[in-house]
């Protein structure tokens, strides 16, 4: 660029802060920062004033105190003599448990109903639509309470299973008992089990002690090893295909590799199922799935599943009909077309909203409070807050937990998005 006439050089004037594009954005940002910091300072000052007026301070010491309450649903050892911190941990694990289970079941339901809704079969697609619209348009809380009510109001009490001609009986060949106190299912047990290993960290993590079954670790390791071998077999099959054009059949080899070692291991450990049995007025043995967990799990999965079904349907619809036609015109069979052409494209569309549905499900699991499932909001943000009067700290910690979880999941999603983005000009 050339200047024909010299522009007169001027010194810096105050009005440039506003009218000069070079300084303007800095000025705006400084003003915004000052305003926001002032607002935050105002809030903090109010909080301090209110806290001292109430004779309170801000401390997390209460986490180390004895909790004094019981939690019936727990994955790790806990009793009322444990600390509030431990109770919070139990709650966190319960949140993660129901969220994890929910995500799995919701995905299964969503994929099934999303595909069914696309079916050319009129009645099937209509039923799928009824499921989707029915669950999507009614508040989740209502579903949670209603499903919980079904489980507690219209199932028999354990005592109904007693006597010569009981009013209720167990299902699945006497393996499972559905009662108003929860469902009892067989529990995996090992005759020659390897015992537990105790993990006990020190310092501020002293509350994080827990036991892990060595059997479980060994089974998991075997499973991982089998999966690695399966991957190897598939790579080899692909190599053979690349070299000769014919892909060897691998599915039965893969099944064998996955199941044979596990079966052998289970046999070696003396695996058997401990059936639930009626003793007195209740069931003993077996795994007890509480109604609160089951109802929350089912309601979250059914509700989120309806949203996922719409996402799956949208994702498949987003792949244009021309893609299928082109694949057909090349001679590809429908199954191959689905696997090689439609799914890889549909998944790119499906996965980001799917993950944000997982996020929603995790956040919605905080509705556990309505039916007394002890998640992190009910332990740390509920009973602990009520007992210690530390509502500020308690709710802050709960919020922080959810926030960190959300940020972790959404940064994972961003990474995925960047990786699979379609390359265009």
């Amino acid at each position, binding site marked *: 660029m050339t200047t024909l006439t010299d522009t007169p050089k001027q010194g810096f004037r105050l009005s440039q802060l506003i009218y000069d594009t070079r300084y303007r954005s800095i000025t705006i940002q400084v003003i915004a920062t000052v305003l926001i910091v002032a607002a935050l300072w105002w809030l903090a000052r109010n909080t301090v004033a209110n806290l001292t007026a109430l004779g309170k301070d801000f401390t997390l010491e209460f986490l180390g105190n004895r909790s004094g309450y019981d939690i019936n649903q727990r994955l790790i050892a806990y009793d009322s003599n444990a600390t509030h911190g431990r109770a919070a941990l139990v709650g966190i694990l319960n949140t993660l448990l129901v969220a994890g289970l929910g995500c799995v079941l919701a995905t299964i339901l969503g994929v099934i109903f999303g595909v069914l809704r696309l079916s050319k079969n009129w009645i099937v697609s209509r039923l799928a639509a009824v499921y989707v619209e029915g669950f999507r348009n009614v508040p989740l809380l209502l579903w949670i309470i209603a499903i919980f009510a079904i489980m507690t109001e219209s199932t028999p009490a354990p005592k109904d299973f007693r006597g010569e001609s009981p009013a209720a009986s167990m299902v699945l060949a006497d393996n499972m008992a559905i009662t108003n106190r929860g469902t009892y299912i067989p529990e995996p047990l090992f005759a020659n089990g390897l015992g537990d290993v105790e993990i006990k960290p020190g310092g501020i993590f002293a509350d994080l002690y827990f036991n892990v079954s060595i059997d479980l670790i060994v089974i998991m390791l075997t499973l991982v090893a089998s999966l690695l071998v399966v991957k190897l077999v598939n790579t080899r099959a692909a190599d053979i*295909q*690349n*070299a*000769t*054009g*014919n892909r060897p059949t691998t599915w039965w080899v893969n099944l064998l590799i996955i199941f044979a070692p596990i079966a052998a291991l289970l046999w070696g450990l003396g695996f058997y199922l401990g059936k639930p049995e009626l003793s007195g007025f209740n069931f003993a043995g077996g795994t007890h799935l509480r109604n609160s967990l089951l109802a929350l799990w089912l309601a979250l999965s059914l509700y989120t599943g309806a949203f996922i079904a719409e996402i799956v349907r949208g994702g498949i619809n987003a792949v*244009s009909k*021309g*893609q299928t*036609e*082109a*694949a*057909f*015109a*090349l*001679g*590809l*069979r429908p199954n*191959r077309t689905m696997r*090689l*052409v439609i799914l*890889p*494209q549909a998944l*790119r569309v499906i996965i980001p909203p799917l993950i944000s549905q997982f996020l929603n499900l995790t956040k919605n699991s905080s509705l556990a409070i309505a039916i007394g499932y002890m998640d992190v909001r009910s332990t740390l943000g509920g009973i602990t807050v009520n007992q210690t009067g530390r509502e500020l700290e308690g709710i802050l910690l709960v919020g922080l937990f959810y926030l960190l979880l959300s940020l972790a999941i959404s940064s994972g999603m961003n990474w995925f998005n960047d990786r699979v983005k*379609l*390359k*265009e*000009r």
Partner: protein
Amino acid sequence: MSELAIERQIDRSHMTISDEVAIQINNMNKWYGQFHVLRDINLTVQRGERIVICGPSGSGKSTLIRCINRLEEHQSGDIIVDGTELTSDLKNIDKIRSEVGMCFQHFNLFPHLTILENCTLAPIWVRKVPRKEAEDIAMHYLEKVKIPDQAHKYPGMLSGGQQQRVAIARSLCMKPRIMLFDEPTSALDPEMIKEVLDTMIELAEEGMTMLCVTHEMGFAQAVANRVIFMDQGQIIEQNEPHAFFNDPQSDRTKLFLSQILGH
């Protein structure tokens, strides 16, 4: 409708029509619901023929060629391709689809695969060709359509004309004996139409049996040995190109030609 003059000299040495029948369609009818789209179609295509099908939109011309590789199902009459009758038998459909190549108006390249992968997908999974060999074939045809250097790019990174040429190469990789073109140039800008038409002309020069639905009348005059005019789901008129354009018989044909040529 653009009418590009075909400037190049066309080499007709390999353009021979044999007596062997490539496609035979007898009394074929098709309905969409209550709507009668194709009415009593009778058509015999001999090996080596280059047929251009034209007609107003909604006249059933695309539907006709989509019936030939069973992208659409016909309800009565028969279609015999290369001696194989098209029925709902999956084996026959597979056989015909691997013999018949097709190019679409919107290219329909697979956006998640590279150009090379687009071209090797069907040979590998349908013809069971080893990957190396499939890639050699693909490169051969990509060179033929003059875009070998784009092989590792994704479709979204190519221009429309390039994409359509890739789509042609992709079909050729299956070594088809018949090629169907469904308005291959109507989604393209004028300067890109030429490159696609050039590719199609080269294909014709090699003696490929071709059925083209197109409004490129320059192409029809230069390459086709037969032009078919369709309206309201039926074949109204057919003739060799010179006579078709200079001496149309039916009123409908005259009207259509005056609209399409008379700017």
